[in-house]
């Protein structure tokens, strides 16, 4: 047997019967690729982490497009560091939530809330904290930016891992217990592979969303001060300040190239590999990635693997031994009194925190301000609803048309995915310029800005929904002569409802978050402002007005959580029970 180490995540194990080709073109390509990657990473890393700057000297961003590759690389590095951190967080948090009953009761609701909190509202808090932490160094800003991206990525991924772990087939779990797999073996052979697909897809989506936070966090004004971190996001901010349309164009081109490159070199291969870890035993069509094919056809990786395999195997066996299950791992039934004490202390802590927050806000700004902010929240909420309605009206027919035509879907789905990961705030300046020239109030315009990012979630979920309507049902509709309107009412509408709800939930969450950067925009020295909770938070952040930051962010969280509970959850349940296909 040539291969006995189970497939792990360290690399692509070659097939057991794979031939060993001679050193070929593929190896040249792989070798050059690895060297390039190492060079770029070390160069960029050195720049970010070695050059120390006191915070008084803000690094300048040059608008020369020749600097763009450098800026792009630095932004990309931030994204990947955040991704690594998110992954680590996911494993610790998701694992704890899935494995401990008591931890689960705190961690899962907390995650639900964290997911609903407008991350951008917290930028001010984190930036100040991190600057204080890394006094006199650029690292503070770097950390704050990475943290902002992290908060945009981590929650989704954690939920995905938690759900995968909780929905492991019970017989597999029993098998692992009965055959006494050690904790390490259980993790690498069962749990990690079983959650791989969900994790990779969620990571990919969250990574796409992360660009938005990157762009927002690289150039930020906090506590009456402008902080800039060299990167593609701050390049855009500088271009806006200088009213330089050409530079903006370059930034957008760079961004598109960057997204494409990362997709081809990172996510596509990862998705292809993860595809192998399907829990269903049915043989299906395999995903393809040219990079994975290249890697598999090259001999260099195989040589490397042959060299590393004995070491890896030894490490594997060592970890397995170290984490072996003890003789009697059976859990005792948790004591009832212990549970009660735990519950009561949970309630007390939660209540204490809530009271402290309310007292702080009331003491500092008064009840009138709360009412004012709540009204602004209603305004922003109204915008979110209007944009959802409009996006639905526009994109549902388009999505259904794409979903019903396999040819159209093949062409357009990658495009839609790219559009969804493209940070909408790169397009804000153009829209802002348009508003200024046409004299459109941002009260209306901000809806367009919010929609720029949010609408794509609706579109590609509707495409997916339309694709999942069985052909039989469509043929039935055609054969009994359902006309367009009737067909929509009887088949298409109910058929895509579930996907639409999923898309709308994501879009609504994204729109609330985007309101913080959409209700207050500028072009050069001209600043447009809309009445809304987003602008309220944005202004409070700029001024460092703590009570108003807490009030605004808290209210927005309440709005988001409330909408989720009162509107989206029931709709989702309805979709799951009544409008389920198959």
């Amino acid at each position, binding site marked *: 047997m040539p291969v006995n180490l189970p497939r792990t995540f360290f690399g692509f194990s070659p*097939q057991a019967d794979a031939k060993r080709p001679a050193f070929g073109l593929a190896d040249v390509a792989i070798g050059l690729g690895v060297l390039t990657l190492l060079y770029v990473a070390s160069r960029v890393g050195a720049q970010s982490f070695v050059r120390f700057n006191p915070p008084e000297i803000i690094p300048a961003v040059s608008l020369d497009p020749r600097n763009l590759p450098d800026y792009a690389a630095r932004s990309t590095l931030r994204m990947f560091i955040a991704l690594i951190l998110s992954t680590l967080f996911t494993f610790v948090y998701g694992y704890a939530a899935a494995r401990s009953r008591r931890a689960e009761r705190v961690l899962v609701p907390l995650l639900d809330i964290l997911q609903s909190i407008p991350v951008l509202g917290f930028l001010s808090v984190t930036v100040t904290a991190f600057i204080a932490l890394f006094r006199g160094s650029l690292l503070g800003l770097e950390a704050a930016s990475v943290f902002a991206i992290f908060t945009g990525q981590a929650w989704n991924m954690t939920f995905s891992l938690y759900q995968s772990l909780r929905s492991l087939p019970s017989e597999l779990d029993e098998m692992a217990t009965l*055959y006494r*797999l050690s904790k390490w073996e259980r993790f690498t052979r069962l749990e990690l592979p079983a959650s791989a697909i969900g994790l990779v897809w969620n990571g990919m989506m969250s990574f796409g969303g992360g660009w938005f936070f990157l762009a927002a966090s690289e150039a930020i004004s906090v506590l009456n001060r402008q902080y800039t971190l060299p990167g593609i996001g701050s390049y855009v901010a500088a271009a806006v300040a200088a009213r330089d349309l050409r530079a903006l164009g370059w930034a957008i081109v760079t961004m598109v190239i960057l997204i494409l490159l990362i997709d081809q070199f990172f996510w596509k291969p990862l998705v292809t590999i993860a595809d192998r870890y399907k*829990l269903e035993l049915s043989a299906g069509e395999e995903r393809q990635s040219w990079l994975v094919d290249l890697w598999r056809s090259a001999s260099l990786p195989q040589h490397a693997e042959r060299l590393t395999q004995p070491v890896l195997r030894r490490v594997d066996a060592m970890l397995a031994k170290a984490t072996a299950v003890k003789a009697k*791992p*059976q859990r005792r039934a948790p004591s009832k009194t212990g549970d009660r004490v735990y519950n009561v202390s949970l309630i007390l802590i939660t209540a204490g925190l809530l009271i402290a927050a309310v007292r702080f806000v009331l003491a500092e700004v008064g009840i009138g301000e709360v009412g004012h902010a709540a009204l602004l929240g209603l305004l922003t909420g109204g915008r979110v609803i209007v944009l959802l309605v409009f996006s639905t009206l526009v994109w549902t027919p388009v999505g259904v048309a794409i979903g019903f035509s396999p040819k159209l879907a093949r062409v357009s789905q990658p495009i839609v995915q790219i559009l969804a990961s493209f940070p909408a705030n790169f397009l804000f300046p153009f829209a802002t310029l348009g508003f200024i020239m046409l004299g459109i109030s941002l009260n209306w315009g901000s809806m367009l800005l919010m929609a720029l990012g949010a609408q794509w979630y609706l579109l590609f979920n509707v495409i997916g929904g339309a694709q999942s309507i069985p052909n039989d049902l469509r043929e039935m509709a055609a054969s009994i002569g359902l006309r367009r309107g009737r067909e929509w009412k009887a088949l298409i509408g109910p058929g895509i409802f579930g996907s639409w709800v999923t898309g709308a939930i994501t879009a609504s969450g994204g729109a609330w978050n985007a309101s913080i950067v959409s209700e207050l925009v500028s072009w050069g020295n001209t600043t447009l402002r809309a009445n809304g909770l987003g602008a309220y938070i944005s202004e409070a952040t700029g001024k460092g007005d703590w009570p108003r930051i807490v009030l605004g962010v808290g209210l927005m969280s309440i709005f988001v959580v409330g909408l989720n509970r009162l509107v989206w959850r029931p709709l989702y349940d309805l979709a799951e029970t009544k409008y389920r296909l198959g």
Partner: protein
Amino acid sequence: MEQNSSLLIAEHVAKSFPLPAGGEQTVLEEVTLNIAQGEVVALLGRSGSGKSTLLRILAGLIQPSSGRVLVNGAPLEGPNSQVAMVFQSFALLPWLTVQENAELGLFARGEAKEICEKEATVALSMVGLEGFEGAYPKELSGGMRQRVGFARAFVMKPDVLMMDEPFSALDVLTAENLRGEISDLWERNAFPAKSILIVTHNIEEAVLLADRIVVLGANPGCVRGEVRVEMPRPRDKKAARFISLVDYIYTVMTNPQAPVAALPAKEPSSRFPMLPHARVGGISGLLEIVNDRGGREDLPKLAESLRLEVDDLLPAVDASAMLRFAEVVQGDVVITDAGKEFATAGVHRSHEIFKEQLLANVPFVTTVIEALSQKKNGRIGKDFLLDILDEHFSASEAERQFETLVDWGRYAQLFEYDANDERLYAAEAEISESTLDG
């Protein structure tokens, strides 16, 4: 094989779960069981008899609420290291090769790589999988996947090899084939375990494989008695003794009160008789077939000609008996006059007959009708009924009872159920509603 020492003993083992409405649901009560060296024991029971629960208690995967398990005389704590299990759904890891799957248990035991490899190769060749070592489970057919499951258990060389309905996820021919090979291994004394404990609801399978069949009763699960199968191996399915034993067990299993092998039967604690999970379509289908075959048919034959497992067939038989459409006599289904009429009636008339039998024989339906008539608006919520059912059944069983009740009541046109607002309507009230809606 010599039968002497006890490998595995369950002593007064019971298991209960808390019910949502308070109180407890007893899944298994007071089971004492002994697995001796060199024997094949089958746990035979219908769904709800707690047979899988009992197996998992013996495997140390579930802790009993009371009683204890002894392994080679010592009380069991945690997973039982002296057993290996073959699972109904195979429980293979799709991302590991056949070889890696088979090695898994040994590897976890910390054996050297060479030993794992060698043992797995031996076990795989025992189940006829030479040459498939590098394949992935998804490339294999269902039968071959379960062979990997067997090989994984074989390499452990356990005292007791446990099988949890190992053939029920396979198609009939494949199951037959694999069952034959396993019993062949046992008969040749080549089986890599000292004893076998198999859970099944397939009567023929139990008679074919076991030395001893432990018949479990349902709600709550308990041992009703055991049947010794004293027939030479390999057993001939067409032999008269084989057929009469299968018939006998069918009779036992369709009559919860019947004594098993002269052991006194327990009085079923059924203040609240459980509705068998049979759809009206299934009941009338069964009755039509029995009627076509002269009004009387052998249950095993019926199961075989319909290609149905007992668990699928028996609910329809039970429901027919409950509604007095048929009765079970010595392993045969015998149709009653009402059953004959029901089987041959036109659509409209069959609804009426069903209604008559339902009202006459199922008191709970009468209770529901009364509750409906007492309500001013003529409707009651699902929750209300579930609350009642929850006192007698587990949460999931209460749901199934409710579903069956709705199915029967709808067919009898006694009441209607609106799944959207989860309410039962008296039938007349529903008609006006539906005309409004439509």
